[in-house]
């Protein structure tokens, strides 16, 4: 797991999916994100790396307005999803989150059956006309999350009874079932063992064919393995943002270099 080999993968598309300009985030008086500009491309895996506490999660949560749920959090700047301002007064964050799905650090399946976990999003958004449609969505999503073969015989079993890695894939299936355009993942592998991590990483690479994936990770190796673009955050600032190959072989900023060679972090 320790190889720093950058996997060379062609970036298929260059369409701009999310465009963030001059984003500042405050928790009360704490200035957590300072003037960040990022362009996130469609059908690309973008990795956010940086030492812990540098604001990776905070910035990620700006992209689907999960920060709205924190009372003291204030976001300024301009974040556009396909050219539309997601902080515009007319935008209902609930609707936005159906388009920009999220997978959390700790697997958090609902204490319901595997089926109900995956079916929840489609149900509340009315994506399935009948039971057969819903069954199909559930099956497709579980297949896409590479979990179908393991759980197809026990869809009624509780989601919380799965192993950690399976639970995280269930959460990914649940997010995928809603049919999002962007999938945000906040350190999705930090609670997983190496084998489960490898499975999830493989899955992320597959998801790239349909979604734009943004993944926060504290592991540079992981960023190198799964992403095409990498953003390096440090103390709330975006230090460097470039092709992953570029960041890992030829970093421009000395801070990036120190981090990837293991001197800060």
């Amino acid at each position, binding site marked *: 797991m320790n190889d720093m080999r950058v996997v060379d993968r062609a970036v298929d598309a260059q369409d701009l999916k999310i465009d963030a300009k001059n984003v500042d985030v405050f928790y009360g008086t704490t200035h957590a994100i300072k003037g960040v500009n990022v362009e996130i491309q469609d059908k690309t895996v973008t990795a956010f790396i940086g030492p812990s506490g540098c604001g990776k999660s905070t910035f990620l949560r700006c992209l689907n307005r*999960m920060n709205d749920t924190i009372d003291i959090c204030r976001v300024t700047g301009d974040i556009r999803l396909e050219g539309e301002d997601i902080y515009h007064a007319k935008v209902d964050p609930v609707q936005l989150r*159906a388009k920009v*799905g999220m997978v959390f650090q700790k697997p958090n399946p609902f204490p319901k059956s595997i089926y109900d976990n995956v079916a*929840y999003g489609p149900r509340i*958004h009315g994506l399935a006309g009948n039971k057969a449609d819903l069954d199909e969505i559930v099956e497709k999503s579980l297949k896409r999350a590479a979990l179908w073969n393991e759980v197809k015989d026990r869809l009624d079993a509780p989601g919380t009874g799965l192993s950690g890695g399976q639970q995280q894939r269930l*959460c990914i299936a649940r997010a995928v079932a809603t049919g999002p355009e962007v999938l945000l993942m906040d350190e999705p592998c930090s609670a997983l063992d190496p084998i489960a991590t490898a499975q999830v990483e493989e899955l992320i690479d597959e998801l790239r064919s349909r979604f734009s994936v943004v993944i926060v990770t504290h592991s540079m190796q992981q960023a190198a393995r799964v992403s095409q673009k990498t953003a390096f955050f440090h103390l709330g600032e975006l230090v460097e943002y470039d092709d992953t190959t570029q960041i890992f072989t030829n970093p421009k900023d000395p801070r990036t270099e120190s981090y990837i060679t293991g001197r800060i972090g």
Partner: protein
Amino acid sequence: MTDAAANTPRKKSSIYATDANTKKRNAREARFRAFGLTAIGIGIAALVFLVVSIVGNGYNAFRQTYITIPVELAEQRLDPAGNRDPAEMARVTTFGYAPLLAQALQQHLQAEGIPMDGVNPRDLMAMISQEAPAQVRAMVLANPEIVGQTITLEMLAGGRIDGYFKNRVTLESAERDSNVSPAQLMLAEAMAAAGIIDTRFNWRFITGPDASGQRPEAAGLGVAILGSLYMMLVVLVLALPIGVAASIYLEEFAPQNRFTDIIEVNISNLAAVPSIVFGILGLAIFINFAGLPQSAPIVGGLVLTLMTLPTIIIATRAALRAVPPSIRDAALGLGASKMQAVFHHVLPLAMPGILTGTIIGLAQALGETAPLLLIGMVAFVREFPDAPPEGLFDPTSALPVQVFNWTQRSDPAFVERASGATIVLLVFLVCMNLLAVMLRRRFERRW
């Protein structure tokens, strides 16, 4: 441990030998355990004493002595007009019935050959409860066609006779008692031997209404049980939804500001307000201001609702807070609205805690006496209330108030009744707690 201590090399010692420090620690631990056991022991002993004394006093309330004899319901006394019209028959009061019963008893004793040494007809009549004529009258008015027949009647024995068979009254105590003579007790003994008097389970105690201070043998809990049930109904219907809704709003939706802080502090304080204050409040608002009737379960229920709300709110908020935030995040992250997140995911997980809190609140309310005294629920009520919802406005009593009421009466037979009522109250409380455990089990899916 300081660094210096960490760095001092430990003296070499065998782990078989207990050193002084360890001994001291072990002794301290043993002492602490002994204190704990003593505390639990005292608690259990107190509980056992309480239960034994209540059950010992109260189980007799569930047994009652009856006199069973054939009685001729003579037409010329009960229905002089002879037309079996209940309206006209109602003119015959219980005083018209009493001599019939006395006569029947006298005749039956003669027929059985039981001598009535030293017992004159008036004393003989006194052995039958004063309630018996009223019961026979009610029976006759309910089906007039039995007039003229001779039927076997079960009549309550008088309180002192009943007490004799429960060892509350003895021949010695009867010497000093103006209400009963040793001769009467001897006669009762003979009647029991002949099978005329027997003591058996007393359904009336649970289903019947209260009786006046001179007739402890007829006193029952029926009205009080119904009153308590009606009040619990009101409390459940009002306090559960209001309390849960308030908690959900405060916990999940309300902004954190001074205003909500003040509300929060007030709710916690309300939980500690003495219950009699709620009684005064109820008297002022529900009776004097809103004009609701006194002694009515609706008023009692409203007062108890006010009292129970803080308990339910505090328990519900604790239960909501115990639901991991990751569940809310998961739902919100999928595009659920806040309300969907709460109602689909948070509330079901908080359910066991909410139910437990609610049932504890209800149990508290069930045993509450003081506020009910203030709103007039201590009145002597013999009429059963109608079925809800109209019945909620009829005067009733309540279980704890009935206990209080009976302990105030002079006849010692009421001590037994009061203890019996306490047993009923305790059984209700135990049932509610069992219900709480069962509901918890049901809702607490372990996944």
